[in-house]
């Protein structure tokens, strides 16, 4: 506009625009000079990843599914989990307990998506075995989830691996302890075949300590001990000794899972509240018995997976809570019944659960033909040499599974409490990393310390991909290894959507069959379920930052990500506030 006296009208010849639009471009005003804080794209860790004992990039494969990249999603999944078709079925999925989506509506059914991806992987031929790049060999004792996991990751790290299995078939507790209706043998077999195809030498019917003396393992450069926990705890029922009708539940399960169909009689009592108790109860039900579970605390304290308890109830298993067996009743030398003590809950014990306390004089007698005890298992560590330190019946190990006597490492049920398939898989993976690091150091490589904290997903389990420094299929923006919490996210842009629940077999048919009860989700449902993932902490290119930036300082890069023109970003923080996932951070650094 003209200079001079602005209080007088402009020259009449001058055409005045109808609207007040600046004559110069606003680009001359670099509003970026105003800022005292600035935004930065920083991807964080989704709580599912941090909550997974295996150390799976769950958010990552959900992201890839959301982009329609199913094969890449499957590849990323098996990069961290050697047996997704198994864990998709039997894992207690703590990931879902940590899922932020539960604060919006319901947690993502991660296990269902994992199962569907796992089955997809099994349907395809196995990839070629990884190249053998290391001269060292490792012995693995036990082919349960811990042993197979360690073997799998060691093979991928280039080692020669031999697995010793005492039983006739591989799988450990997956095969011996978990009934077929939860984990079909065909699935387990194919999953193990696939792991074996990584170039693993599997020797079944070979028990270390008897078939192979411990000293024979000297030919290996390291040993991973994962024989599991197979000794049923003493039931401490008065008069039970020598009574064949009272037997450890795990033994019964091993028989049934081996194809036997023992006659348990009409009434069966199962003692315990864990997963073994549920497996015993439901297996006994399938053999035609009426089953009552006796548990000394209340449903709230049951360690079993809630879904297993629900299914047991739906199938007709009865529950007697706050009751413990104390004495066997015999008649003419035959077992007839069991006398039980009524309990009440007292003060919390070291596990945090309230301790059951007997109610003086309150006893009752329950008729039974068979009693299956499932009150926990102990480990048989007698085959281990003395120099391997143990404590409370478990092998002592450090964070990477190294025992007090290198090169012996250990994992799975001989180190974990509480025990789970996922923890065993995760321990196997950690030990593989520990063994690799140990052997490289021994070979004179300058390996330094294992950056354990950097390998962990936000404090959860370690990532094999990170350890191998492989390329992440998802481009991460300045990743920060912190778990993102719900209050760091902005829920306003999310829509609620119901969780897809697994399809179950009709309960009426269950008593006569050991077929799988849970059919999971269809491919379409599983993809929809994966699309429910909020991608917590990770930029999924949703573009809200770009839309909300009042300075239009944000633009798309060619690779799909975003960049901020700091000449114009005035540090208002709207992008960080609007980011639904907490993937933008405001910082004073760099100003």
């Amino acid at each position, binding site marked *: 506009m003209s200079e001079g006296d602005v209080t007088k009208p402009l020259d009449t010849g001058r055409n005045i625009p109808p*609207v007040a639009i600046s004559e110069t471009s606003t680009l001359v005003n670099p509003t970026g000079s105003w800022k005292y804080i600035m935004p930065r794209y920083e991807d964080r860790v989704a709580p599912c990843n941090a909550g997974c004992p295996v150390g799976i990039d769950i958010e990552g494969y959900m992201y890839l599914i959301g982009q329609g990249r199913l094969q890449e999603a499957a590849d990323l999944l098996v990069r961290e989990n050697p047996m997704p078709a198994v864990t998709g079925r039997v894992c207690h999925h703590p990931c879902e307990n940590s899922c932020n989506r539960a604060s919006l509506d319901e947690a993502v059914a991660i296990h269902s998506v994992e199962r569907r991806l796992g089955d997809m992987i099994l349907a395809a031929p196995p990839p070629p075995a990884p190249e053998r790049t290391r001269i060292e060999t490792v012995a693995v004792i036990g082919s349960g989830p811990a042993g197979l996991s360690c073997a799998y990751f060691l093979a991928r790290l280039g080692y020669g691996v031999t697995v010793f299995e005492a039983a006739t078939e591989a799988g450990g507790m997956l095969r011996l302890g978990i009934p077929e209706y939860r984990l079909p043998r065909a699935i387990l077999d194919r999953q193990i075949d696939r792991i074996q195809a990584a170039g693993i030498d599997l020797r079944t019917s070979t028990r270390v300590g008897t078939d192979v003396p411990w000293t024979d393992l000297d030919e290996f450069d390291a040993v991973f001990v994962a024989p599991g926990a197979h000794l049923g705890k003493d039931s401490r029922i008065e008069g039970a000794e020598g009574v064949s009708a009272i037997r450890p539940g795990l033994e019964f399960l091993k028989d049934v899972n081996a194809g036997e169909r023992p006659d348990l009689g009409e009434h069966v009592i199962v003692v315990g509240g864990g997963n073994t108790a549920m497996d015993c109860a439901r297996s006994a039900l399938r053999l035609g018995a009426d089953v009552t579970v006796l548990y000394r605390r209340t449903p709230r304290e049951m360690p079993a997976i809630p879904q297993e308890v629900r299914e047991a109830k739906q199938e007709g298993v009865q529950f007697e809570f706050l009751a413990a067996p104390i004495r066997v009743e015999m008649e003419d030398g035959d077992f007839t019944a069991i006398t039980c003590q009524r309990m009440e809950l007292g003060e919390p014990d070291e596990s945090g659960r309230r301790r059951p306390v007997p109610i003086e004089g309150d006893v009752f007698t329950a008729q039974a033909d068979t009693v299956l005890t499932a009150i926990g298992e102990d480990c048989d560590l007698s085959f281990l040499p003395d120099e391997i330190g143990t404590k409370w019946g478990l092998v002592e190990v450090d964070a990477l599974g190294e025992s007090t006597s290198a090169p012996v490492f250990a994992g799975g049920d001989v180190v974990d409490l509480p025990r789970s398939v996922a923890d065993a898989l995760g321990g196997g993976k950690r030990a593989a990393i520990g063994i690799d690091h140990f052997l490289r150091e021994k070979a004179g490589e300058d390996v330094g310390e294992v950056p354990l904290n950097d390998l962990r997903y936000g404090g959860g389990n370690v990532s094999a991909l990170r350890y191998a420094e492989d390329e992440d299929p998802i481009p991460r923006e300045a990743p920060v290894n912190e778990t993102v919490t719900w209050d760091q996210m902005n829920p306003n842009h999310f829509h609620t959507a119901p969780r897809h629940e697994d399809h179950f077999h009709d309960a009426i048919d269950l008593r006569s069959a050991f077929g799988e009860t849970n059919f999971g989700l269809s491919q379409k449902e599983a993809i929809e379920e994966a699309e429910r993932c909020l991608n917590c902490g990770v930029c999924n290119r949703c573009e809200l930052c770009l839309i909300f930036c009042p300075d239009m300082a944000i633009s798309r890069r060619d690779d799909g990500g975003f960049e901020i023109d700091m000449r114009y970003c005035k540090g208002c923080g709207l992008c960080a506030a609007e980011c639904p996932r907490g993937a933008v951070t405001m910082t004073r650094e760099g100003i």
Partner: protein
Amino acid sequence: MKKVMIGNHAVSWGVLRSRVEVISAYPITPQTQIVEALSDMVADGSLPAQYIKVESEHSAMAACIGGSIAGTRTFTATSAQGLALMHEMLHWAAGGRLPVVMANVNRAMAPGWTIWTDQNDSLSQRDTGWIQLYCETNQEVFDTTIQAFKLAETVNLPVMLVLDAFFLSHTSEPVDVTEQEDVDLFLPQREATFKMDTSDPHAFGALVRPDAYTEMRWQQQESMREARDVFRQMEDEWEAITGRRHGAVEAYRTEDADLLLVTSGTITSTARTVVDERRADGEKVGLIKVKMFRPFPTDELRGLLAGVDRVAVLDRNISPGHGGIFAEETRSALYDVPPEDRPTLFGYVLGLGGRDVTPSVINDIIDNTRSKDQPEREDLWVGVEL
């Protein structure tokens, strides 16, 4: 296609037919159904528009302003306190010469807390620079919604269409919903005379010094004046397509009348009945319906009222400390009429906060107007003083 619908949905259908591109609104009774139906239309894809949820009416209008600067056709709806909260943004839309269209469902202002109708909410926004159109029927609401976009985009001024709470908003009437292809002929896609270009960014609403501000306001006033003619031509076009015409001002049975009622909104319909009855009795009574409040139809009113003996203006509103607003505006329009032709004007304030205005109320007003040579005061409060 004829459909039975409430007045609020007549607005929604009008917006749908107008192919609006950006809608931003905040819910408020009695308007909510308008944007509820629109959000459904957007959600099911029948209206491919951006629906921007906001936290207040101030932001709703701000979002409409942004959408309009970007060159899109934009719409919002509100009532009463919501409109009051928009006040600042109403100036930005008008001064920015943006053809935003808004439906305001007339609801009385609180306190006392109320949801029923009167015109004080919209009339309080008289000087913000918005065109204001008051509707009588649901059909008129539908037609006016579509016309509002054409008018707004032709003169680059925002348009507020106004309908009575409940008497129109929540009352069902048959509405002839003009077919899409006919509306498309009448209302093509908006071609903005100016809009934001992000590759060459400029500040909109930038500083204007005293050497140009007056001229810009003058241009705005010129556009307001032009809007009267544009409205007429636009109604010609609409009538050619649909056969319907409502008029900025409508004269009803005014021939040789010695007394004319002046009304707006739904009171008009009741007044028509009273006029019909009185005419049947041989009384020379007629009715003037004022639809367009801004720009005020000064010439039309002057032409229709000059020479009539008495005029009674019915105001469902009050400018406290002065009088009924339509009465004041009409009185002002008649000032230039020579004294011998200038009618005596009686102003009545009535129906505030949703009170019913029945035929007997209007009969009382006619009787009172005939019974006196001069009004006692500029405003007489029906139900209190009459």
